[in-house]
Each structure stands twice: as structure tokens, then as C-alpha cells.
């Protein structure tokens, strides 16, 4: 093909410009854009999740029941041993150290109220448990990071589908429990992924349906649900609830300063009088 003498410099400069623009096209640093008036206005047409949501009766998931997680067959011995621990009232492996529960327990096992704050690009879930639980569900269209830092509540992205907040969460710590009840559970051991559907079921009732994928310990996805009831009475307002505070006495040191002094605990986390800190030999 013959290129005309006029066209040649044009093509060359285009090629150069293209090269330069490629060189300049470094991935842009993602930003959370400032919300516009219409972003706030759009929230008014979403389901109203305001208020304080009190959890419904607690679910337990004993092995063999219809509600139990479908554990992989090779977990049977561990599951039986954990259930025996629960039945015997022996020290437990869950909720003893004030670390966050993470999903799914923060939905299925909580006994304290939660709030959903809907703002442009995100839904923030706050709770009284866990020393004031905080989850961010990004609704701005972003994807999960390719390799998220593992956390207790994972990385959550959500979208609204006909009044349902559909949430997908990945990036969990492998230690996060899949509960059998309040006392025992089995760590997910890695690769857990949780789907949630959060929706109003009436003027003041809400449901969270969960599907838990945990291929290291579950033979199939586990389906669980929890109902919540809305309260607008101010006595239901959430209060500060620091999980570690109950580990300490209010005390005064030798210089007259107000300090916290550790309370002795039994292996399961129960407070023990200081003069009986050592467990008796059986």
C-alpha cells in the first residue's frame, strides 16, 4: 500500500499520540465521588431501613436438624465432639475472646440490635454487639478486590433488586466460625463466601436470608435466615457496647487514678471472684 506524502506525517503523529496516550493511561486511582443531590434523592425511593432492628428469637443449628449446616462427612467426628462439649457445659470455642463474630454469626447469632444506614454508594450496618459492630456494604458498583485482606466481616458489595438489598461477601478470615449455636461452631477454614438478601417483610419487620458457601467444611451451601423487628422508641437507640469492658473492674490505683483492673475468668469466659482465680483441681 502506498501512503501519500501528505497522509504519512499525519499517520505518524497519530501513532505517536496514541503511544503517548497509552503511556499516560496508568490506571486511575479509584475515588469515592462526592454525592450529588440526585444521589441523595434516589435513596428516598429505596426501602426505608431506618430505625433500630431487634433480632428475633435465636436459632440453633444442632447436628442432624433440618437447620444444621450440611457439614462435609469428614467433619462428623469433630461436629459430634463439639456438640458433646455444648451438651456437657464444657468450655467452648466460640465467643470467648471478644473478637468479632463475623458472618454468618453476626446475623444468625446476635442478641443485640442493629441499624442500617443507607447513604450514597454504601449501606453501613452498625450493631451493639462486638464492641459496636461495623460493616460496610458498597453499593457503588465496585467489584471485590482481586485479593482482599481477610477480615471477620469480609468485603461486602451490594445492589438493590426490586426492594431487596442483595449482598455478596468474600475475603473472610479462615478462623471465622460457622455456628452450631451460641457455644460452639466450626471455623470455615478458608474460601468462605456469603450471599445475603435483606428485605422488608412488613411495615416494621425485616428478614435476612443467608447462603453460606464454605467448601472446606460444607458439602453444600448452607441456608439460614433471621428476622428483625423495627423500633423507633428512643429507649431502643443503640448504645456504646465495648466487649472488653466487662473483662475489667472499675478500680482506683495507688495514686488515686481511675483505672481498669482485669477480672479473672474461667476457661469459658465467666467472671470469677479474684480470691478464687485459680480453678480448683478436679
Amino acid at each position, binding site marked *: 500500500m502506498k501512503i501519500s506524502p501528505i497522509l504519512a506525517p499525519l499517520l505518524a503523529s497519530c501513532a505517536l499520540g496514541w503511544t503517548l496516550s497509552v503511556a499516560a493511561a496508568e490506571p486511575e486511582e479509584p475515588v469515592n465521588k462526592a454525592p450529588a443531590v440526585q444521589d441523595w434523592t434516589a435513596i428516598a425511593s429505596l426501602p426505608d431501613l431506618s430505625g433500630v432492628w*431487634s433480632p428475633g428469637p435465636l436459632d440453633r443449628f444442632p447436628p442432624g436438624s433440618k437447620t444444621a449446616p450440611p457439614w462435609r462427612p469428614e467433619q462428623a467426628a469433630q461436629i459430634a465432639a463439639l456438640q458433646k462439649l455444648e451438651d456437657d457445659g464444657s468450655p467452648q470455642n466460640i465467643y470467648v475472646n471478644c473478637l468479632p463474630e463475623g458472618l454468618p454469626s453476626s446475623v444468625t447469632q446476635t442478641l443485640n440490635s442493629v441499624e442500617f444506614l443507607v447513604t450514597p454508594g454504601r449501606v453501613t450496618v452498625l450493631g451493639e454487639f462486638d464492641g459496636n459492630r461495623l460493616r460496610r456494604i458498597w453499593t457503588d458498583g465496585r467489584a471485590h478486590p482481586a485479593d482482599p485482606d481477610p477480615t471477620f466481616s469480609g468485603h461486602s458489595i451490594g445492589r438493590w433488586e426490586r426492594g431487596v438489598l442483595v449482598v455478596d461477601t468474600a475475603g473472610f478470615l479462615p478462623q471465622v466460625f460457622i455456628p452450631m449455636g451460641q*457455644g460452639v461452631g466450626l471455623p470455615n477454614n478458608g474460601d468462605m463466601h456469603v450471599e445475603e438478601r435483606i428485605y422488608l417483610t412488613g411495615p416494621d419487620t425485616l428478614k435476612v436470608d443467608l447462603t453460606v458457601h464454605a467448601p472446606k467444611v460444607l458439602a453444600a451451601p448452607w441456608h439460614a435466615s433471621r428476622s428483625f423487628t423495627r423500633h423507633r422508641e428512643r429507649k*431502643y437507640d443503640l*448504645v456504646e*457496647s465495648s466487649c472488653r469492658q466487662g473483662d475489667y473492674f472499675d478500680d482506683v490505683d495507688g495514686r488515686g487514678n481511675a483505672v481498669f483492673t482485669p477480672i479473672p475468668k474461667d476457661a469459658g469466659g465467666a*467472671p*470469677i471472684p479474684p*480470691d478464687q482465680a485459680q*480453678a480448683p483441681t478436679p
Partner: protein
Amino acid sequence: MSRPLSRLIAAALLLATPALPLPAHHSFAMFDPSKPMTFEGTVKTLQWTAPHAILWIQAGQVGKYAPGLWSLELPTSPGNLSKMGWSRTSLKPGDKVIVDINPIRDGRRAAQFKKVTIVATGKVLTVGAIPGAQPPK
């Protein structure tokens, strides 16, 4: 009684069991519900903390238990207790009280709180199920 009928009655009893107070942040399985105890003591403090409030009671000899300080752990936190009629001043240091408890299994003076009666006033404080689980009327 035929076995299916006894099973039915057992199931009915199970269903009829009132909603029990539930622990908030650790299992209460270390406490023994089959050995409930009632005794008199004096309030040292009502520790108004999350995840569980703790009622510290000074008591004399109680059965096999030597005199001393008892920790009576409530099953929930101030956030929930305040909706059940409690406040951090519900019980004051020095109040004479009668307490109902489930003792810890290992024999120490530690227990699950069930009920307190203030001797001077007869006022009774208990802990109910999760507050607000039902819609407001």
C-alpha cells in the same frame, strides 16, 4: 402411657418452656441449671458493662461455699437490660438482697444470675428474652 404419647407431651412441654434469657457473648454452659440456689447477700457493685453486666455479691457461708465475694453474671449488656427495666442504679452498694442463681460447675463462687429481690422494698429484678423481638403495639 404409650411412647408416642409421652414423646408428644415431652415435645409440648418443650414448646411451652418460656423464652429463656440468653447469653450475649459467651456460652453459659459452664453454669449448672440443674443445681439452682437461692441465698441472701449484700450488693458490692452492679457492674454495668458489656457484653454482660455482673452483680458482685458478698455472702456468708452458703451450703458448702465459704463466705466471700460472688460474681453473678447477667446474660446480657446494658443496652438490652435498660429495655428490661434495669438501670445502673437498680442495685446499690450495701443493698441487702436475695439472689437466685445457677452456680458454675467447678465449685467456685461464680454463677449465672437469674433473679434478685431487694429485701428492703421487695422489688424483684429478672432478665427476660431479647427485648423488642415482637413488633410494637
